[in-house]
């Protein structure tokens, strides 16, 4: 039976900030003066104008000893060496692929930065160049690591490890890069039955946990078998939980996603996106995270 719910819009009410750890956050808008003290070094998101340090983005001021920077809430991805990203191939060019990673410029994946099938180590030849499209086409998703950053800010990627490569069946969720917490590892096999890749660029990939670890796969063979219904339910629930956390502006990391998943179990999967259910689940998650810390 079709289920259609219509509702009147409700003005979102300001959520009370969680217990302040280290005082109130200093929020600034572009053009706001952060400090007039000249002793500070300026970091990202700031500039100096007439001996005053002024913010160039809207966000919270972060101070580390003498370094002042502004971390924006909603921004394009700025590449750092060593970040894990999930990207989509937009173009296939000579000896390189252009990858869209939600940054200001398209990222680059050079042919010499990918693993050849079978793990061979040799110089890339003309045949390899012609076979590029057989490996990665326009629209394909890949997981990669940032190798270097060009002077204009464009990012160069590499998939030189077996854990990176072309991604198979799953669901992609796009969020703001500032909501993904930096951690030691971004590949998580959640105990609920699915795996998640938290790209630093805000692309979150949810996929069914592979049965056995294929050692020589490296992303060349895609598993095109239908995913069982139980896995699908877990993946859909995780996807909705991540959307709920993002709407309420909570940081995304494996523990917060897991707590949100557990809090959402009493509800039906499609109900998680209703505003009141979303608020309830995220409140419970926030409470559990605070209990974990304190």
């Amino acid at each position, binding site marked *: 039976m*079709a289920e259609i719910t219509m509702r009147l819009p409700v003005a979102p009410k300001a959520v009370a900030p969680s217990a302040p750890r280290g005082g109130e956050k200093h929020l600034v808008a572009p053009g706001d003066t952060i400090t007039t003290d000249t002793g500070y070094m300026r970091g990202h998101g700031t500039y100096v104008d007439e001996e005053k340090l002024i913010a160039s983005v809207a966000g919270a001021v972060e101070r580390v000893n003498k370094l002042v920077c502004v971390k924006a809430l909603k921004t394009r991805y700025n590449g750092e060496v060593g970040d894990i990203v999930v990207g989509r191939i937009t173009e296939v060019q000579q000896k390189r692929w252009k990858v869209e990673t939600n940054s200001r410029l398209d990222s680059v994946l050079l042919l010499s930065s990918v693993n050849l099938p079978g793990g061979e180590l040799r110089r890339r030849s003309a045949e390899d160049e012609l076979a590029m499209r057989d490996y990665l086409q326009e*629209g394909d998703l890949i997981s990669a690591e940032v190798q270097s950053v060009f002077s204009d800010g464009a990012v160069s990627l590499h998939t030189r490890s077996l854990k990176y490569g072309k991604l198979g069946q799953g669901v992609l969720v796009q969020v703001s890069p500032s909501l993904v917490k930096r951690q030691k590892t971004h590949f998580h096999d959640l105990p609920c039955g699915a795996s998640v890749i938290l790209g630093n660029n805000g692309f979150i990939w949810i996929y069914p946990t592979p049965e056995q670890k294929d050692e020589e796969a490296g992303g060349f063979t895609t598993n095109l078998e239908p995913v069982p219904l139980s896995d699908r339910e877990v993946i859909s629930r995780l996807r909705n939980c991540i959307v709920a956390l993002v709407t309420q502006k909570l940081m995304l990391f494996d523990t917060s996603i897991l707590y949100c998943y557990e809090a959402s179990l009493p509800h039906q999967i499609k109900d998680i996106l209703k505003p009141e259910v979303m608020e309830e689940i995220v409140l419970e998650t926030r409470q559990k995270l605070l209990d974990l810390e304190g």
Partner: protein
Amino acid sequence: MASVVLSEAEKLYIVHGVQEDLRVDGRGCEDYRCVEVETDVVSNTSGSARVKLGHTDILVGVKAEMGTPKLEKPDEGYLEFFVDCSANATPEFEGRGGEELGTEIANTLYRVFSSESSVDLKSLCINPREHCWVVYVDVLLLECGGNLFDAISIAVKAALFNTRIPKVRVLEDEEGSKEIELSDDPYDCIRLNVVDVPCIVTLSKIGYRHVVDATLQEEACSLASLLISVTSKGALTSMKKVGKGSLDPESIFEMMETGKRVGKSLHIALQKILDEEESLGTSRQKVGFLG
């Protein structure tokens, strides 16, 4: 139309999911996303409505102006539709990019409202052959998140429900010249009867099954869609097939049946929310755009 690029594996995942009646966001094949409706958002129109369906955001403004009736229908008023695809929705609509989609949607709306029973046009007549009300319906696409036609038709129905046309009287002088008099009371107005206004239901064929209210990702996996307009009593008033794929007659029949069923529920839910909003009256907190 704004579209996303998907990998083959992602498309396969979506198609298999639809087969098992579990879409990516947990909905069934016949479920709609959460709809938010608000009327009377634009103050200088005769009626307006804003509808948010997932990531799709539509604003409709209705203005009633005096004009001359059409020659072939001298004792009726008429409706004019205009659709503006704003560049806010997607960069593809910048400049004249959105014109093609806008004219397609406007033509569909003309077709849907072309049947005589949808809106009582005779009530829009003031003086046969001389004066009538022309109702200009302007649709503005603020955000494109899949399923445009459904959201637009819901918004148009809500805006027409909210429209208040002032009552006029025609006085005739001794010399025969006619004068039009507007009543002094600003709340003295006629409302349009929207009971028979149809709503569009889009059914997208994905794999072997069809879904209602497709997101942008699901639209990228569907090769053919059927747009049908259904009244609240379940009667079909028009049908249109879009997409480059083909549909075989049996699936068309199944999609029609689903569309009629879903359409009836859609009308019931919409009428309920419009009545609820009306009953709140002036005490309703207007959210608008800066909520």
